[in-house]
């Protein structure tokens, strides 16, 4: 087939010509990012193999003994497994259910404020907690909720909230909303500001009430964004942050505050149980992937085929 050969030749020559002309795009532009990705993301993926080994740091991956699924079995059959899994899921799911609507509500309210000066000042306050670090936030929580702290003074009680397992999730979620809701509202606020002013005007002249206006004008303006944010948040449920859970943990609230991420850290880096810790981490990643796919599929169904 001489014709096909010729086109092949041509396309090969074109590609080479393109590479010669645009080598900078590959080497200078893409190069650094690709290098970092391969070294720090893909090489550790190979390191997952130690989850199936009795890993010995001196012998390395090539010299260590293979043990199959032993560590997965050990984790899945341990009495704590269900508790850590549920702690992780509850913290994330409740956090999502409580936390997800707040930024949207904030944005809708901000959008109804007539004076842009007042709106800006309120936004400035709403964004502020985002610039406080997790350590400082948790430090503040510990102070405000301490036995002699202001909350106990207000309530006239002497409760030590941070030692109560049943209080951990509420503290975690409420402080999360306190810190993040304002900042998360930015993108909705920006999208709403761009929503057609004429449409809203028309809706008001038609005598539509607030709910009808929101349904006709504001919701369409942010709907896609809400869907994407929801998929991303729901799909990342198992990767709920280590940093805050760890900073709010006390020996006494571990019953509800020990999540998979903190357990992986303690087992792996504090106890040096590398293989076991890697196995739990892998288990976590896989559950997360499955959740992401499920959420994406179901949102697609509800949202006329549009997902991630």
């Amino acid at each position, binding site marked *: 087939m001489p014709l096909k050969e010729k086109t092949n030749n041509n396309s090969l020559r074109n590609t080479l010509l393109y590479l010669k002309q645009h080598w900078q795009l590959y080497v200078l532009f893409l190069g650094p990012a690709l290098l970092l990705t391969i070294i720090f993301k893909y*090489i550790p993926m190979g390191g997952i193999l130690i989850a199936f080994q009795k890993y010995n740091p001196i012998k390395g991956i090539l010299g260590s003994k293979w043990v199959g699924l032993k560590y997965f079995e050990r984790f899945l059959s341990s009495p704590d497994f269900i508790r850590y899994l549920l702690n992780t899921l509850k913290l994330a799911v409740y956090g999502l259910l409580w936390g997800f609507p707040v930024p949207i509500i904030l944005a809708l*309210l901000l959008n109804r404020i007539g004076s842009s000066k007042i709106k800006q000042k309120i936004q400035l306050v709403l964004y502020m907690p985002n610039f406080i670090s997790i350590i*400082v936030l948790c430090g503040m929580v510990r102070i405000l909720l301490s036995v002699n702290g202001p909350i106990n003074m207000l309530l006239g009680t002497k409760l030590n909230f941070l030692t109560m397992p049943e209080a951990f999730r509420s503290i975690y979620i409420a402080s999360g909303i306190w810190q993040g809701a304002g900042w998360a509202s930015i993108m909705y606020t920006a999208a709403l500001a761009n929503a057609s002013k004429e449409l809203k005007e028309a809706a008001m002249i038609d005598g539509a009430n607030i709910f009808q206006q929101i349904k006709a004008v504001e919701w369409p303006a942010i709907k896609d964004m809400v869907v994407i944010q929801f998929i991303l948040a729901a799909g990342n449920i198992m990767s709920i942050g280590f940093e805050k859970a760890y900073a709010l943990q006390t020996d006494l609230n571990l019953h509800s505050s020990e999540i998979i991420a903190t357990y992986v850290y303690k087992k792996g880096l504090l106890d040096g149980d590398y293989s076991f810790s890697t196995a739990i981490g892998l288990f976590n990643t896989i559950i*997360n992937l499955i959740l992401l796919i499920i959420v994406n599929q179901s949102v697609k169904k509800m949202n006329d085929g549009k997902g991630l």
Partner: protein
Amino acid sequence: MENNKFSRYGTADKAFLITGYILLGLFVLAIIVPMLYIIVASFIDPVTLQNQGITFDFSKWTLTAYERVLANKQIWVGFKNSIIYSIIFTVVSVAITMLCAYPMSRADFKGKGFFNIIFVITMFFGGGLIPTYLLISKLGMLNSMWAIILPGAFSVWNMIIARTYYQGIPAELREAAEVDGANDVEFFAKILIPVCTPVIAVLALWQFVGMWNSYFDAMIYLNDASKQPLQLVLRSILIQNQPESGMISDMQSTAQRAQLAELLKYATIIISSLPLLVMYPFFQRYFDAGIMAGSVKG
């Protein structure tokens, strides 16, 4: 502005709006009040604070906590390290991200689909804590600042945002530059980057704040006290209740030490949070612009 006039709403809507505004006001108060409490409490004599709480009897106010925190070396070491790490991280990260996003934004870039898959996979799948830790230690990066800078320097999410921004820039710009004989580097440096200030500002802000406020990587990779960033110093004071020894050791009784340690927390919170809280309002004008720039459309 006109269509937002309150008088134009019907009665039911007004009631609804007022409820909404009250909730918004409560949220704003819930943010301000705890902060004010910490600020005021940081000035109050520890014994008074523990026994009767906040007081505006100024004879009970003191600057002890601030003097002790500011006199402590470790806080300053932490500040210095955090500034160095955050600046280097921001520069490296934004540069790599903006560079990578450029070819990824070009329709004619050969291999785009392949590279895209390579990058996106890492958003959802990774080796996890231990394999990454073992790699860092094999590379001899333990106790080096590069251990907390390089692994997170390239963010796929930020690359997607920068790419979306590039795609909004008229193609004529590049066509004109190519006619003038500019190569890819020249076009990028002289023409493209200058029109990307909003997205660069936003990415830089995110990366800076992110590095400034994080502690996990530093906790596992940096052991020397002299290399610790501010957040780790704060962690020992605020979370572990272990103030730097020089801060309280001159106190006689355990009770006194405990009270002072408590007070030091308030001053530490204020001193450590002040720099970012003073700075961020100056960036506010970039927030909306940058967010819109990066509003990822799926």
